[in-house]
């Protein structure tokens, strides 16, 4: 009885070897696996019950040998096909010519350019939180509670009256001055928030870049030099710059800075409302109250400060007409600029 089985096993070995020679893919290999390793081996173990105790020993060894033999052979073929399969799926040498590469957002790109100009003049870059408290956003900037100039910045409150979304990045200047001693020469930037309906020229969230320089003997001449240099570096040597008297509670005197219209070069067009000038910066000499508020001696130290809306500047720089366009992320527009 056991002799028949041994013979059958020998035949099966040959069958398996032949079958493995003609299989074409992994699917067929796994079919063989089921047939030989599962069904047939199961059958053999069941036959084992029908033989005598002595025969069991020898037959058991034969069955185990067959099992090992079959496993090895099948694995060999299987790994061959597996290798082939992975190689065909990923052809790393293929060339695809319509891949769209991402790049920096135009606002980031312009910011980087501006940052480079200021860093070149010796400014270092600092940051501050977007959720602010009244003290840093208003009070220490010479804007006590109930000051009418607070109307200029309609603010979002997280919990009125103290916790708010910063309405300008100027809060960073106070935070930095509180932590360090003059001389200070920093720029800081980020998103700011003001209650405003979305229209071509306004969005409730926008970007600001501001700068501050505090040391002994800083004068308005320094302010002019820094800003003229900045505008000429970014917009070209031929850019005209003018300073107009203005008002910010945290600077005295304050100046609005205009540059010649980028679209018409100063002749007058729709963008500059026929004036030839576009207002791009607010600036001034740091108010003594602000310096005293952070513990600086305002008799010894003076400072200059300036701020700009990156979105507005981007319109001029990329010759766009609507601030909204900067957020729509229209790829075809980005490719043009």
């Amino acid at each position, binding site marked *: 009885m056991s002799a028949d089985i041994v013979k059958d096993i020998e035949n099966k070995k040959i069958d398996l070897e032949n079958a493995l020679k003609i299989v074409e893919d992994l699917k067929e290999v796994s079919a063989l696996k089921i047939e030989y390793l599962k069904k047939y081996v199961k059958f053999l173990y069941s036959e084992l019950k029908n033989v005598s105790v002595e025969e069991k020993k020898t037959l058991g060894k034969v069955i185990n040998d067959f099992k090992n033999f079959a496993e090895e052979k099948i694995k060999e073929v299987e790994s061959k096909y597996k290798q082939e399969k992975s190689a065909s799926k990923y052809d790393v040498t293929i060339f695809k010519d319509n891949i769209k590469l991402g790049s920096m957002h135009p606002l980031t790109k312009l910011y980087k350019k501006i940052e480079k100009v200021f860093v070149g003049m010796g400014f270092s870059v600092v940051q501050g939180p977007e959720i602010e408290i009244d003290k840093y956003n208003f009070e220490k900037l010479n804007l006590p*509670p*109930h*000051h*009418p*100039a607070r*109307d*200029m910045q309609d603010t979002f409150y997280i919990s009125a009256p103290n916790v708010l979304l910063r309405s300008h990045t100027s809060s960073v200047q106070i935070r930095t001055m509180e932590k360090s001693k003059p001389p200070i020469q920093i720029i800081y930037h980020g998103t700011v928030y003001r209650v405003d309906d979305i229209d071509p020229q306004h969005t409730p969230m926008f970007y600001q870049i501001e700068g501050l320089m505090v040391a002994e003997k800083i004068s308005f001449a320094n302010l002019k030099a820094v800003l003229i240099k900045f505008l000429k570096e970014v917009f070209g040597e031929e850019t005209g710059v003018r300073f*107009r*008297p*203005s*008002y910010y*509670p945290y600077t005295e005197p304050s*100046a*609005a800075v205009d540059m010649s219209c980028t679209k018409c070069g100063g002749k007058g067009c729709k963008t500059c409302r026929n004036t030839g000038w576009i207002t791009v910066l607010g600036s001034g000499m740091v108010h003594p109250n602000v310096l005293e508020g952070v513990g600086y001696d305002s008799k010894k130290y003076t400072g200059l400060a300036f701020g700009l809306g990156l979105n507005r500047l981007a319109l001029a720089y990329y010759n766009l007409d609507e601030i909204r366009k900067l957020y729509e992320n229209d790829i075809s527009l980005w490719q043009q600029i």
Partner: protein
Amino acid sequence: MFKFSLNWLRDYFEEDIKYDEIMDKLKLQGFEFGGKKEFDGDVVTEIEVKANRPDMLYHMGIARELKAFDGEKIPEITHENSAVNNENFPVKINVNKEVCKRYCALKISGVNLKIPTPEYIIKRLNVLEINSVNAVVDIGNYVMLDMGQPIHSYDFDKISGNKLTIDKSEKDSKITTFIGDEAEVKKGDIVISDDEGIKCVAGVIGTQGAAVTEITKDIILEAANFDEISVRLTSRRLKISTPSSFRFERGVNINSTLDVLLKCANMITKICGGKIEANVFDFYPEKK
């Protein structure tokens, strides 16, 4: 924001002024402008006034800015003089100096309010979008737009107890403004009251209680300098913003209060008749 009339500005210049020339000067001073409108022979321009320039919220101030550009001065405010005598003023006035830095008042007897407001005043108020009420109120508004000092008037006969108190309100109470709206005054708002109740929310709006009407004979004319923050808080809370509260919030020239009051009184007596009573009230404890 303040709208000014070109023709009104011309009052301050002997020679004719050209619109483009004055605009150039103002622009060079850093001012920005909103819309511009033309009315028969006049040009009305909206000027953006930042919080530090309340002196640009009236025509004399704009004229002063223009003259200063050429190194000239505007003429001083001229009026008939009257002696100050707080003790003998016909109304007993108590002022809390925390909420009011200067308080001037005078009495005009025998005005005739049936006389209509002169045409030129109505025309000037209309181009600046201010409605005509009656001669005394119109002249008050005219003076405010001309010289920046808000003016308020009371019907003398409606002041009960011959007493006015300028102080924070001690309790909540309902008022009816002179245009007929209901409003709720809260404890702490600055008010002007007599024995009967609130006659005026200081610097913001008058009530019907003491309003000057067609049958008014005697008036008390008031020019004051209320505390900026108090006016602002009261105006915010009541959600009432008037040309007067807008100016007080930003600051009114404390040294012209009496001059403007007397000038205004002169105009009223000239137009509506009546006589300025001899004693003028002037509370000004901390001179600046």
